[in-house]
């Protein structure tokens, strides 16, 4: 299932034409790429990875079919863009990146099987992939057993750290605490109603939120906490409960198709998000596409990246992304985090001077990426990223307006003391 499909070679003439066309970009690249300086393969690859004198193979492992395709499509697009840009700059240690894409098909055993294929058969030097925690948990033993390197893009619940994974999204405390402090300080919020889809990420996140609200915010309390099965589509009852308890803040971590139902019904029930504060950590620009901007306008989201961020890196990223994938595509937090994966890997390989997994794992802490669309990021000793946390407000056009950002980078803390 390689992404490089063989062209239909029916006539010899067509074949020649195609070969000629394929050679064109390579010729135009020659003056820029500095293949001559590339160190010998034997020196940079001592463990038999798929690295040649001119190429290095990486894997992309996401769901492009099944339920999760909705979310993971953006990550695949971002990773392909990053790889193309890195190749245009001359590749990694003078080698062009070639990628093999596998489909996890929204099925966790399939993820594990494909991960094994990418590591054992294809000898991928790194894999960009996974989206849900369940898929990450499924592939983790594979990456540890066969010593691979996974760049994982999604914000997630934390409580994990591995030599073989770099977490390019935020872990729960990074995403949650700054947002709660902000809403408490600027809105004077005292009462919180916690909502979530019923699985590990929302539950762990709300647990952290509850501890923080009850333990660290003066006089604040949680007035309700509720979970709904994944795919739940009827929220009228809980909306009535919210109307009854009148919380200062609705704190929502609802995912997938349920999101659309929740915000549409909230609006239909007459809850006006310009007056009622709602803070979410699960709705990126990608989700707003399905929800409809007019249904969620006024809500606040707390994450590390918004498409509207005003900095030169992000402007270049957004325009390159749209040029490659179409003017209408939107870029959410996870898509940006997925874009960081190939870049961080390139920078780490160059720092280590080697493709060897052990050397990359050791060299990762301290690697800085100044060109990140979200601004400067740096890899922590625990393989998560130092990053800023931001609060944005949804507008009717489906974009977020930046309201607040932390002054400093927030330290990743996947095993937070006092929050478990």
């Amino acid at each position, binding site marked *: 299932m390689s992404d490089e499909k063989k062209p239909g070679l029916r006539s010899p003439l067509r074949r020649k034409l195609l070969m000629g066309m394929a050679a064109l970009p390579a010729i135009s690249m020659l003056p820029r790429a500095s293949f001559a300086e590339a160190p010998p393969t034997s020196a940079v690859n001592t463990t038999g990875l798929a690295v040649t004198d001119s190429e290095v193979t990486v894997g992309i492992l996401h769901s492009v*079919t099944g339920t999760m395709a*909705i979310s993971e499509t953006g990550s695949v697009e971002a990773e392909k863009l990053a790889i193309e840009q890195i190749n245009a700059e001359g590749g990694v240690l003078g080698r062009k990146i070639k990628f093999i894409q596998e489909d996890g098909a929204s099925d966790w055993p399939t993820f594990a099987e494909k991960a094994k294929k990418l590591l054992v058969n294809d000898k991928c030097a790194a894999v960009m992939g996974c989206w849900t925690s369940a898929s990450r948990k499924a592939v983790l033993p594979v990456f540890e057993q066969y010593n691979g390197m996974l760049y994982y893009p999604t914000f997630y619940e934390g409580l994990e750290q591995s030599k073989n994974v770099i977490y390019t999204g935020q872990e729960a405390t990074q995403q949650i605490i700054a947002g709660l402090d902000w809403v408490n300080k600027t809105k004077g919020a005292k009462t919180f109603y916690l909502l979530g889809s019923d699985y590990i990420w929302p539950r762990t996140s709300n647990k952290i939120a509850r501890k923080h609200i009850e333990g660290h915010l003066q006089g604040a309390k949680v007035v309700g906490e509720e*979970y*709904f*099965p994944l795919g739940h589509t009827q929220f009228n009852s809980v909306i009535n409960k919210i109307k*009854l308890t009148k919380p200062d803040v609705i704190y929502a971590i609802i995912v997938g198709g349920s999101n659309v139902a929740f915000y549409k019904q909230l609006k239909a029930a*007459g809850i006006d998000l310009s007056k009622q504060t709602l803070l979410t950590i699960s709705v990126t620009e990608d989700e707003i596409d*399905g*929800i409809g901007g007019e249904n969620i306008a006024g809500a606040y989201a707390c994450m590390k990246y918004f498409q509207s961020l005003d900095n030169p890196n992000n402007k270049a990223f957004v325009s390159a992304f749209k040029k490659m994938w179409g003017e209408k595509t939107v870029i959410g937090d996870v898509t940006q985090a997925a874009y960081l994966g190939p870049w961080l890997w390139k920078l780490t390989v160059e720092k280590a001077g080697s493709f060897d997994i052990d050397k990359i794992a050791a060299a990762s802490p301290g690697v800085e990426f100044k060109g990140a669309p979200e601004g400067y990021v740096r890899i922590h000793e625990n393989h998560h990223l130092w990053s800023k946390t931001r609060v944005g407000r949804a507008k009717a056009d489906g974009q977020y307006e930046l309201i607040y950002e932390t002054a400093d980078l927030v330290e990743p803390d996947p095993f937070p003391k006092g929050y478990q």
Partner: protein
Amino acid sequence: MFGDYSLSDLGAIFAMQGFAGLILFSVYVLMALGLAIIFGQMGVINMAHGEFMILGAYVTWMTSNGFQQYLPSLFPGYFFLAMILAFIASGALGMLVEWALIRHLYKRPLDTLLATWGLSLILQQAYRSLFGAREVGVELPEWMMGSWQATDAIQIPINGMFVMGLTVLITIVVAYLLFWSRWGRQVRAVVQNRVMAGAVGINTEKVDRYTFGLGCGIAGIAGSAFTMIGSTGPTAGQLYIVDTFLVVVFGGAASLVGTIASAFTISQAQSTMEFFLSGSMAKVLTLLAIVAILMMRPQGLFALKVRK
């Protein structure tokens, strides 16, 4: 739990909660009607029901886009046309599927389960290839959004009332078609004794095709209506399929009244428990109760008495 609230507050909440239950009831009836016709009258277990619904949702999305682009002045009324188009599209696809697939399997009801499940996967991938893997947002006209302010404290969602009205209308039409029209008599004759119905001159193949088409068409209308309250994506149909089967099986497979009674019971249980307990717990308890009742009464709430 209610100690801190004033009486008028509570009154308003219970009124709104009553409406929430009725809205859920209408949603269940609307999504189950199509399946009840196909399962009840033809004995076909249509696992692709959700995908027929989503076809209706996509048709609505396309109609909405079309109106925005070419007829923005008529946009407020596009939804009615969209529902008709959704009915036609899903119904036509249903008739095609019946002709190509289902009619070869009437003697093997369990195989229809497998075949339609395969069909649902095929349709999901087709939607993904055609419309993209991401969800699409269906824009609604302004008048269908928001809520109706009944009193100071009571707000009733307009889209909820719309679904309720639609459900009543479609139920009446279906009941008329099945119980009072010539076609309905033919359908029931075929259900009760296919060979004899054929012998007295009923074109059973045609009856089957139209019945299946009607069931799918109603699914299309349901899908169109649900763009107001839910998501539209390639796999969104899966969100409805479990609840739909639950309603139909619990009600007794061959009975329209049963379907309605069962939708009412399940929706009231669900929305009341959701209010007093939590979302996940309500679902668990509802499912447990249904399992227990079906163990005692496997034929469902209402069963058609047919001579075997």
